[in-house]
């Protein structure tokens, strides 16, 4: 189980933030926000290489002593950030990848909702 999940819009502003209860949401948000740095770095490196840009999963962005921060970005520059505990060995790279895929499809569903205004905050039911 991830600790935190953030969906970040094109302009780097958060669209949706979920934190595991009882966590220091401030710290996690700082981590997620800092993760944007690495995402930007990875995206811009990707632009230099004309190779396959289909891979949306960016892998481990960075790790602190307690958390691992993973990133994913859609083609429309919507970013997903998932934070997990370092000690959580059950979440391997593949699981994280699947998690992101799933998240992406959920996000697509949200955007398809005609009552949702793109770029506005998303709320979960």
């Amino acid at each position, binding site marked *: 189980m991830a600790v935190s999940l953030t969906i970040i819009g094109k*302009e780097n*502003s958060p669209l949706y933030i979920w934190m595991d209860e009882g966590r220091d949401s*401030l710290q996690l948000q700082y981590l997620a926000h800092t993760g944007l*740095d690495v995402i930007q770095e990875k995206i811009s490196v990707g632009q230099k290489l004309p190779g396959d840009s289909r891979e949306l999963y960016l892998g481990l962005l960075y790790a602190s002593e307690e958390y691992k921060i993973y990133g994913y970005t859609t083609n429309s520059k919507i970013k997903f950030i998932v934070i997990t505990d*370092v000690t959580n060995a059950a979440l*391997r790279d593949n699981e994280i990848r699947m998690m992101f895929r799933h998240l992406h499809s959920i996000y697509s569903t949200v955007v398809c909702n005609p009552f949702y*205004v793109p770029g506005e905050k998303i709320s979960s039911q």
Partner: protein
Amino acid sequence: MSKHLKHPYVTYSGDHNLFSSLQSGLTSALPQESVEWRRSFGRPTRCVHVDVDFVPYSEDLLTNINTIYQDVETYKANVRESLQTWLHQLKQHGRSDWMVILVETPDTKKTNKLLPRTTVLDKLKSDFGGKQTERCVSLIDPTKADSRSIESWQLLLSKMRHLIMVAYNRALNKFEEAMRSERERRTERNWSFCKYFLLQEELAQVFKMLSLYDESLVQYDELDALFTQFVLNSAAGGMNVFPLDIKISFFIKFSSFSTYNVKLDSPQWLTNFSRPCESWEGLSLAKSCDVKMQEKILSKSISLLEFRNYLFQCQASLLIQQNKPWELASRSLTFLQNTISELRILEATIMNGGIACWGFLSCLEVIQLLAKYKDPSTTDSHALHTAPLWAYARDKLKELGNLCGLMPGSKTSSEQLHVVISLVCGMGEDPHTDEHSQVNNTENVQMSPMSRIKEALSSQESFKKHFLDLSEVAISTYKHIGRIRSARLIGRDLALFYLKEGSLHQAANFLSDQLKTFVEEGWHLLSAHTQTELAKCYLETGDKERYIKTCVQLAACPVDSYKEIRVEMLNNMLEVSKNIEDEKTYSICTDRIFEIGWLKIASTDPIIMGSDVVVQLEIHSNLPVSITFDKLQMQLKQNEEKPKKAEKPSLLVHKGKSSDIERKSSSVSVASSHSSNRKHSTLSVRSSSEIGGESGHQKYSKVSSPSKQERDEEECGPKNPYLKRLNMSFHLDYKQDKSLSSVSVNCLNPHKVLRREDSLGGLDNIEKGIVKEDFSFSLATELIEVKPGKNVIELKTQVTKKGFLVGGQIVLTKDKMEFICNKSSIRGKPLLVEVISENPQIFLGRKERELLAGIPQPLILTINSGSSHIAKDTKVNLKCSRGLTLKLDAEGSLDEGKENERNTPLGFERDIEISLPEIKPFSQSILQLQALTELIPQKDASTIEHNVCITSELLEEKRLDVDIHFIPPFVASHKIHTANLRKYIQVN
């Protein structure tokens, strides 16, 4: 193959003297060329340089044998025998690699030429070679420098290399086999990782010796992964299937790690690593191979930290040898974090701060090492990794600072002093002491990690110095690689440090930097948190202006959890603002506090100069409570010319003007644009001939204006670019016979719509400063309460000039605070007011008939009120030229007529004064007059010209002259005819 010695041994026997003459040549020549190493298990072939030591033959050692025989006829006599015993001995030792070198002199060669197949070499080959005749090599005396002897020397070398390699391969295969079987036993109770570690390390050393650094690294990496896995498994406890680290699965290809789902409780040997760590020496990358550590591993007395250090040092030195310092850099942080988590998992007790010391030392060690390998071209790839390392070291130092009471604001207790002392003890000796003293003179003085940490821990001042130093380096390195957010995060931490220290200004600088990032990107929780701290800062420094601004921003932030703080902040702010003493007013930008939803003019009537304009505006307050403002003003700017159409999504108030629907047409198609008015676009498709005449130009036709409400909604839409309507139109294509061919919908301005938006700008920008503009002319209202959420407010002013007025800034005033909303932040359409002022006009005219002189004729006096209101009994004077008299028609205005009649019986006067009725703006009043002209003698039928002078206050020039022409009804003429004496007058 002992690992303490550098090269493998090759023994020699036979004629020792002869061999020693060859030995030096062989030792130096062998490694000069590489030899191809074909390996088993499908591993790629590698080119390897062999380097060997030759030792005399003895019974126990050795893999590879090398014998030398002087060629003589005595071969048959005794040499053969001794060779046989030698080979026999080898076999007993299980050595299967040997080689016989036959040294020939050119003379013997000559003799042997006559007797082929009977040379000593042939004999040797037939006696011992068996299938391996290549093991017998003849060498022509190397002291001679002719081509033959060189050739044979080269042949010897290449054969020797090859054979050594074969021997290697054999030995290694055997060794790997043993290693693997040892590994397979890892689930057994008495299996020890330490033992296995040393085993595999030997293999790594062999590869290293062969300069196969990458292969060697793989061995260490395998060990690393294996160890990590053991630790993880022990943490996972009862789990059966253990997740494989990617790293391991990568190595599976290589070594048969495949079956890894083994039941493992924490094995016996692992508990050794759980013992308390008593020292926390940092990495020391200078030494590559630490014998002391190997001994410790052997004796199983190594601590986890030491073990990890050792392993990483080995890996590091291999990476450096492969010239991959960046990889070392990238591994470092993971290594540090991983080790710490392993310490946690194994519950190895370590003194508080020990880990921090170790982390700090190791970080700096790596960084210093990297600095050595830095050359201009690789600066960047290093910085990418060193930045997090710097940050990590900084964190660790901070941890130590907290622990030892070195942070500002705290005092070091004696207990903490003890902590410092024991920490310093635990760090052991500085590995850089010798080196440091040497380097000191040549290079710029760079402190070794150890001396750095010692100095930092020595006093608060030096701690501060080092801490700030590190912070600065970390921030600048992060900035260098473009990780601004990471840099800002450190900045925030630094700000907290400054806060503790009391350097509020510095703290405020860092915090406001960070705030900017957060606000720009809309991270509300983070910005709220930063603002809370910033507000504290400003309050302390007495920077009231900034304090107020920050408080208001905070009060308006949309974070639920901050509700109470928001109210509190707002109250604080109001309190402070009341007590502002100086004259200055504080201008605060309304961004994110108040949003102006829309603006519109309340009345639908035209606005006449001098009257009041009432404008409604919707204001959305994000503040948590209601605030009563002293005043709300909206600036108005005079605009002489009507703004261009592009700017005119206006609230234009003008009678009869309705929005036009553009209809673009061409000879083949008729397109109706303006999607927003789709409902109203009563599109009529005209025949092409009709349209053809217009040659494709635009034609405007008026269609009733769409209901204003709807238009407002559309144009006040949110700023969100996703919600912009597309300007679609439909397109009709006709065939030549004018029948419809196709209908399509297309977008008129795809370039504009699909244009790439500048993605650099954030959602919200913090405006640096906001300046109140000239508010001499403004719409205003006073004492207005603004509730949280939507408010509709009416503003009023009197307009005194005609022309177009454009709405500008909006200002809410409260005490000394002015909340200013820039024009650009106002959503919806800009306010545009047209103030109309038309002067009244007076015309005097006739009816359709020509005027005749001599009889009363009707005249019409028309008064257009223009934009003004004409009060009752406004006077108009009409003064006629001589011969013309006027009278107000009784029908037109009965009362006045009577009045006039009193003066003259006929009522006709040369000078009359008319009192007007009340006339409303933009209407006209028509008065009928009667005009009577005197008939004056006239010779011809030319018209009689008269002049009426109209004077009135209403007129701009006060005086208006009107010429009136009368036609004489008849013309009388006379002629005198003379007939003789008679005169006749003929009158016509």
